[in-house]
């Protein structure tokens, strides 16, 4: 798989040039926190503490952190099942996220959603969706609602490269362009649609985002290794949404170090080779790339980096301990959070039988 080589210096893009030292260190810290959270999750999964699926974000951190760092009050985020990175980036705590993985009452969804279904509407984060591309019409709807309410905001709707061949994605692109909905679709192209490579799953001319051309929609492609490059490109798309109320389809080249989920044939020498993973770790790791960059810029030292990394590691370990010690919710909660009206015990919620357990 080829990854575009970045030649432009995106640190000079206005959106990056104005970053303070503190803001730069925050970008790095957020990426490191995601990496450490994911690594701890894997450890606990392998230790039998976490059930179901676990889709790790290691290697892709620059995308979520870069995009979320650009959000204003009326910008919103929605993504698919590889959702831990976006969750932490918008400000969800490691504790609530880890506890959700453990299925505990203290989890962000009280243990009702699991790994693929993290939500924080108070932070403009609308999940966390398990069906490939199923979130793409929802992202459209978020953008539609913003426009309807007259707000100057955008919906950033993330998906993997495996989502681009689903029908509802094209329906969404058509409506987004037709209705001029302020939505930014971001394809996090990590090269694999589960265990099937890009070449074996998608037909395209120059890239996946070019498919937007057919809908008369703006599109672009960038490299995810450099968080500055991600920010510069996404900023343009957000401006288009905010100012012109027009959608964009962006493709970001990235890579995941672990499998589609942890139960992946990759680990037994399946669809890709170890040297390919090593190559990306050595040459395209967004955290190492940014670390070097900040050291060059003179805003970070090795010692500081070690401190950031250690703090993230401890935070993740503490989150695992918090999750482990948290209680599981009572059985009576199984039928809560199904109907708004029943939860609130409104007149509607008290009229008629809603559940059929007896």
């Amino acid at each position, binding site marked *: 798989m080829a990854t575009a080589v970045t030649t432009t210096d995106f640190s000079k893009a206005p959106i990056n040039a104005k970053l303070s030292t503190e803001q730069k260190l925050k970008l790095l810290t957020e990426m490191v926190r995601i990496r450490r959270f994911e690594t701890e999750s894997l450890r606990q999964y392998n230790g039998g503490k976490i059930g179901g699926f676990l889709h790790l974000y290691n290697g892709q951190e620059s995308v979520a952190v870069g995009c979320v760092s650009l959000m204003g009050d009326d910008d919103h985020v929605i993504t698919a099942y590889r959702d831990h990175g976006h969750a932490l980036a918008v400000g969800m705590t490691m504790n609530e996220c880890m506890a959700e993985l453990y299925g505990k009452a203290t989890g962000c969804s009280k243990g009702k*959603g699991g790994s693929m279904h993290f939500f924080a509407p108070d932070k403009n984060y609308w999940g966390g969706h398990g069906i490939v591309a199923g979130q793409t019409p929802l992202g459209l709807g978020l953008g539609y609602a913003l426009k309807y309410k007259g707000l100057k905001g955008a919906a950033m709707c993330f998906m993997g490269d495996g989502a681009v061949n689903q029908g509802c994605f094209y329906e969404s692109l058509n409506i987004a362009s037709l209705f001029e909905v302020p939505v930014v679709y971001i394809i996090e192209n990590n090269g694999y649609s589960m265990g099937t490579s890009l070449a074996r799953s998608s037909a395209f001319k120059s890239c996946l985002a070019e498919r937007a051309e057919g809908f008369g929609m703006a599109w672009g492609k960038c490299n995810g290794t450099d968080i500055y490059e991600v920010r510069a490109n996404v900023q343009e798309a957000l401006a288009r949404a905010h100012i012109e109320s027009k959608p964009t389809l962006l493709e970001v080249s990235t890579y995941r170090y672990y499998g589609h989920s942890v139960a992946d044939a990759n680990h037994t020498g399946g669809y890709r080779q170890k040297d390919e993973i090593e190559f990306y770790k050595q040459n395209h790791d967004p955290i190492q790339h940014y670390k070097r960059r900040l050291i060059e810029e003179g805003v970070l030292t090795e010692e500081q980096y070690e401190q950031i990394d250690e703090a993230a590691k401890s935070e993740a370990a503490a989150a695992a301990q918090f999750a482990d010690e948290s209680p599981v919710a009572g059985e009576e909660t199984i039928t809560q959070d199904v109907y708004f009206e029943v939860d609130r015990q409104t007149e509607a919620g008290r*009229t008629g039988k809603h559940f059929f357990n007896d």
Partner: protein
Amino acid sequence: MPLIEYRDALNQAFDEEMTRDENVVLMGEEVAEYNGAYKVTKGLWKKWGSKRVVDTPISEAGFIGMGVGASMLGIRPVMELMFWSFAAVAWDQIINNAAQVRYMSGGLINCPIVIRGPANGGTNVGATHSHNHESFLANIPGLKVVCPATAYDAKGLMKTAIRDNDPVMFMENTLLYGEKWEVPEEEYLIPLGKADIKREGTDITLIAHGRAALTACTAADILAAEHNISAEVIDLRSIRPLDEDAILESVSKTHRAIYIEEAKPFCGVGAQISSMIMEKIFDELDAPVLRITSIDAPAIYSPELEKRQLPRPLDVVEKVLSIC
């Protein structure tokens, strides 16, 4: 009280709720400039404009999903499916998104959306356009399912559905759109989960939803006139939430029950209700609970045969006579 068509009753409900709440928006294929495939939304685009009444492309997965997403942010979309049969291409958006997002978010999100349109056979349009999805959808916790049989109910239930904060699947009937009923001029609401006793009786309870409730009423009239049998008719109006009390009280009084529906028998609404009666008031029964449904095959095109495929009043009479 004015006599108005079922479609106009719905139209009044939309108009009133759009006046009441600026976040109510009508969407669907041809609902705006064309006035709706069945003229249910007639005149509303002209009155309210393109922001409130929106023509969508033929793109059910896209626009239904868009409505679900918009509802998460507080818009109250009322989405028309030209046929409920077309929900099949938007299934993921309804079943996985609208129905599950509240639960999976631990109650942080809710979807105040109404998805509506006709769900019926009997119009010679063949199997792909004649599905009754009510038992499928009522099977999903998180969804509400409403099937009004009259113009009065259509208006009162629609107004309630629009104000409801959960996703409501609202199933109308093309054969009823042009039928007239008395509808008061003053505002009224009908709660979901409250059945309507359409006929009081003592010998048997006929339970039904949607157009089948009208079939049951005709049958009850015949039973009274020709067979001296007093049948009580219960129209559920909404399937989920369900008025269990109304059913159990009536059957405890009549000791016999038949469920009538235009959907297919396997895992149908009638199967659920008959199981409930058996579990809760077995000792009250003087006969097995029977069911009358569409004949269990895809909806046939042939106009003559399709009439036979759906439950007719005489089918009900015959079944009643078998246990009374």
